[in-house]
């Protein structure tokens, strides 16, 4: 689990079954394991009122485990962007009592949280669990472009090409970490690039 360093750095918990009848799960890749681990502790019939939305990793694993939970609805999407319209639609029509569970990478949790916040769910009432890659979604503070799946420190902005120091400073509004130019004084200075967020 990602360690807490500065105040805006999100902290994640462990998914736990909440009371109520409607449960919406959004997970990617190994986030599926957070759901199946939680299922072991869930009361009987819990998944009868559950909808699971899943973005499988490149290896396509874990689909069967989730289907085995027999949720009321199971839906797969190739990417977060592709499930966004459906998610927005679900949340617009949802009522109080819907509980949200997010499992997987920080990028997935952050972006889903952002949509849910807009829909009126308080972030303290969402269940989150970080699983899998530590890859970050990063905003370049210079060109404002967002680069997905950043695993190195420093990282190159996919938009303007600047070499960025990936900070722990996190924006809930953007669901992204801030990347700040690491060699603004002298561009020829190239610090070694390390795998920091595997």
């Amino acid at each position, binding site marked *: 689990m990602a360690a807490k360093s500065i105040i805006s750095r999100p902290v994640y918990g462990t998914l736990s079954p909440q009371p109520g009848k409607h449960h919406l799960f959004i997970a990617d890749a190994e986030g599926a394991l957070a759901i199946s681990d939680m299922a072991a502790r869930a009361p009987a019939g819990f998944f009868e009122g559950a909808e699971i939305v899943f973005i499988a990793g490149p290896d396509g694993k874990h689909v069967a485990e989730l289907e085995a939970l027999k949720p009321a609805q199971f839906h797969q999407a190739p990417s977060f962007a592709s499930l966004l319209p459906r998610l927005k639609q679900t949340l617009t029509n949802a*009522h109080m*009592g819907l509980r949200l569970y997010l499992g997987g990478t920080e990028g997935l949790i952050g972006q889903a949280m952002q949509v849910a916040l807009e829909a009126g769910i*308080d972030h303290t009432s969402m269940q989150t669990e970080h699983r899998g890659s530590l890859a970050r979604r990063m905003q370049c503070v210079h060109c404002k472009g967002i680069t997905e799946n950043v695993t190195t420190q420093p990282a190159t902005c996919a938009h303007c090409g600047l070499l960025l120091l990936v900070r722990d400073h996190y924006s809930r509004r953007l669901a992204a970490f801030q990347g700040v130019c690491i060699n603004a004084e002298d561009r020829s200075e190239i610090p070694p690039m390390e795998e920091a967020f595997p």
Partner: protein
Amino acid sequence: MSTGTTKLDVVVSDVVPVNELVTRFHFRRRDGDLLPTFSGGAHVVVEMRDGDRTRLNPYSLMGSPLDTREYTISVRRDDVGRGGSLFMHRSVKPGLEMVISYPVNLFSLDLRAKKHLMLAGGIGITPFMAQTAQLAGEGGNFELHYTCRTASLGTYADVLRERYDRRIRLYHDDREERIDLDRLLSTQPLGTHLYVCGPAGMINWVRDRAASLGWPSEAVHFEHFAAPQPGLPFDVTLAVTGKTIRVDEQQSLLEAIEAAGVDPPYLCRGGVCGQCETNVISYDGKFIHNDHWLSEEDHRSGCKIMPCVSRFEGRSLVLER
């Protein structure tokens, strides 16, 4: 002077009977200035000089927060209570000079909410008078469900209907009208916040149903004006001053401490705000914890007590303060 409860010198500018049980009181500042601004849901603590006794009761401000020329409260007469409401009804007349605390809000609106769903029972309507006025001024989205025993005891129901029309739903006990709570709670759009003020039974019912229907506790707000419960008299020693004082049947521990000349902090006098928390140094006997502040573990530990509502039965009790 207590923490957060700086006082205001006021004069009673009007006393208006509302129905057979409820009377409204208007206060203005004695110096003619505007009163401090407040937000919907705030209360003031009214000091009553009743002979050689000082009573301090909290009452919700029910006027519009947009008008601070005067404060208004509504007091329901409780003939079997400890006497504060009777004092207000019998002895408080226009022109009387009184002292009240600054407003404190322990029941404020969460203005991030997309919708505000309010449930009132009986005199629990008062904080909503101010909250609806505040929201209406801001174009806020709200809906108020109000239960009362009979139409004639539906305090301000007519005013509310007149002002807000269909946003107000009334339920009369004598006509067997009941809130369909589960349905109401299950059909609210995401982002709704729930507010409930009324008798303890109603608050517990609503909080309980909301929790089991999946409402996160962050979206459920409640105001509980628990009057201190009477009980057996007991003695208490205050370690700092070495004073030993007696708490009468009808008096709260906090009131007894105040009567002994000590000025402990308080805000709600109803066991919810945490302000009056006091350490227990030693005891021989049993606590009757009536507060909603301390955890069960705190209650069991015997290390802490909330003197505004809790009592004690036994041989000896020594408090830090």
